[in-house]
């Protein structure tokens, strides 16, 4: 084990160096670029055996990764934002073909207007594409999750692609302390990749990607849903194994000061760390607040979320993206869905949309959210629409103090 100062991008590149994938295909997009700069340096220095394919688009990046994976190779890629959007078609195919691809997604806002900074719109757009999604709070987690993801993806009872995400710039470009495992430890943890079906096994030819008609498509999709269920059962075991080699314990969710918390704030990614600081601060002031970080977002940790909310009196859910036209943001939808039909069905849940396009979320903003949740707890008045945090003009809208008119 070694301590290194690495940005999120560098941390994932370091993990990829240790994984030593057979094939990596990538196309540049900010803020993913530095990850690939670093990785191609490893290729240039002969520190990996990887065949690097510098493709002409993200669509081809994932397509080539799919081809390599189906061929029997361990294959990886990385992208952000528009790049992930361009991959959209192939995301579903990679999952449907059950190819254990690991992809780093450096979260960035989606156009229009164009914006290069961090939010979760890109990953949330792919949340139901059949990929496992793991969010990283910091560079350390980005590193650890990347290595764990290989094992999750390739587990014979799972065989699904995995996205490991981190917030663009906020994590990808922030240099932090990262504990890096020894190369040999990683190598033996991930093991050799030897899939049952591979194109390059010319003596046992198989057909990948046939046409399914009404008589088979549904069965294949049902089997795919089961793979996600298996992931939900098995990720726990792989996390446990990783704990043994690293001393770092990961779970589907990470509760913080939640045991006696009456007010719980749920979040994903880098904001979870900032929330912890605010929780400490408010606890010093005697407030019974806590936080719940969702690390594995797909499959959604339904039992854990239910369990950790069982003592709460009010819940806030932070969404760093908008589900346009829906009743609330995507994470909030999931949280509400798991509470539905339980004795917590009437638990007040307030949705906070924040940080779009990289808008900073400060401890002060989070404090305000906790104070508002306290108010909701006392008054019982639950806003039924998402609250937009840190948007100019929002106070006028909510208070309806001033007449406002949208200019078109």
């Amino acid at each position, binding site marked *: 084990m070694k301590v290194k100062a690495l940005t999120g991008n560098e941390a994932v590149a370091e993990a990829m160096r240790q994984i030593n994938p057979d094939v990596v295909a990538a196309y540049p997009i900010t803020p993913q670029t530095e990850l690939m700069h670093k990785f191609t340096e490893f290729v240039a220095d002969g520190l990996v055996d990887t065949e690097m394919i510098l493709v002409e688009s993200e669509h081809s990046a994932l397509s080539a990764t799919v081809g390599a994976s189906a061929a029997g190779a361990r294959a990886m890629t990385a992208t952000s934002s528009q790049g992930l959007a361009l991959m959209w078609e192939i995301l579903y195919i990679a999952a449907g073909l059950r190819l254990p691809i690991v992809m780093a997604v450096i979260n960035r806002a989606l156009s229009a207007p164009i914006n290069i900074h961090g939010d979760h719109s890109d990953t949330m757009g792919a949340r139901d594409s059949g990929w496992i999604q793991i969010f990283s709070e910091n560079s350390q987690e980005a590193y650890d999750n990347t290595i764990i993801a290989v094992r999750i993806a390739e587990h014979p009872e799972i065989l699904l692609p995995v996205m490991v995400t981190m917030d663009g710039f906020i994590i990808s470009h922030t240099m932090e302390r990262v504990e890096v495992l020894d190369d040999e430890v990683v190598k033996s943890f991930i093991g050799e990749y030897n899939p049952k*079906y591979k194109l390059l096994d010319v003596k*046992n030819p198989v057909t990948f990607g046939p046409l399914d008609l009404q008589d088979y498509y*549904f069965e294949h999709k049902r*089997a795919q849903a*089961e793979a996600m269920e298996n992931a939900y059962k098995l990720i726990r075991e792989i996390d446990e194994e990783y704990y043994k080699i690293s001393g770092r314990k990961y779970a589907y969710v990470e509760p913080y000061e939640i045991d006696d918390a009456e007010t719980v704030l749920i979040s994903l990614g880098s904001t979870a760390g900032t929330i912890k600081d605010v929780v400490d601060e408010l606890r010093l002031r005697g407030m019974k607040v806590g936080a719940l970080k969702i690390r594995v977002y797909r499959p959604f940790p339904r039992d854990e979320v239910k369990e950790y909310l069982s003592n709460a009196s009010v819940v806030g859910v932070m969404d760093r993206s908008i589900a346009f036209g829906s009743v609330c943001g995507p994470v909030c939808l999931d949280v509400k869905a798991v509470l539905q039909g339980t004795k917590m069905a009437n638990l007040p849940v307030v949705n906070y949309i924040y940080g779009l396009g990289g808008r900073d979320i400060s401890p002060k903003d989070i404090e305000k959210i906790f104070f508002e949740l306290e108010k909701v707890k006392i008054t019982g008045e639950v806003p039924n629409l998402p609250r937009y945090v840190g948007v100019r003009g929002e106070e006028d809208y909510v208070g309806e103090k001033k007449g406002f008119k949208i200019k078109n």
Partner: protein
Amino acid sequence: MSELKKWFELPVGAVIDEPGSAIRYKTGSWRTFKPVLDKSKCNDCLICWIYCPDNSIIVQDGKLVGFDYDHCKGCGICAEVCPDKSKAITMVLEHQ
């Protein structure tokens, strides 16, 4: 045709692990006309064989021996390309 399988009985990722299984799917029923060979006129030039879309001209040791009526769709290309000097293949209505 095989019985339809349940979702947990299928190979992972919709792969087909039986190479060339299509041979079990019979397309012969598509035919209206069928090719008939007059072996006495055939000189085994195999022109019909190379132009058959359905791999339905049976050749053994370089000799044309007949048609795979399980798969022949009756397109008539074989009769059409059969050289003028031999005209060993003719198309006849299926049930005659």
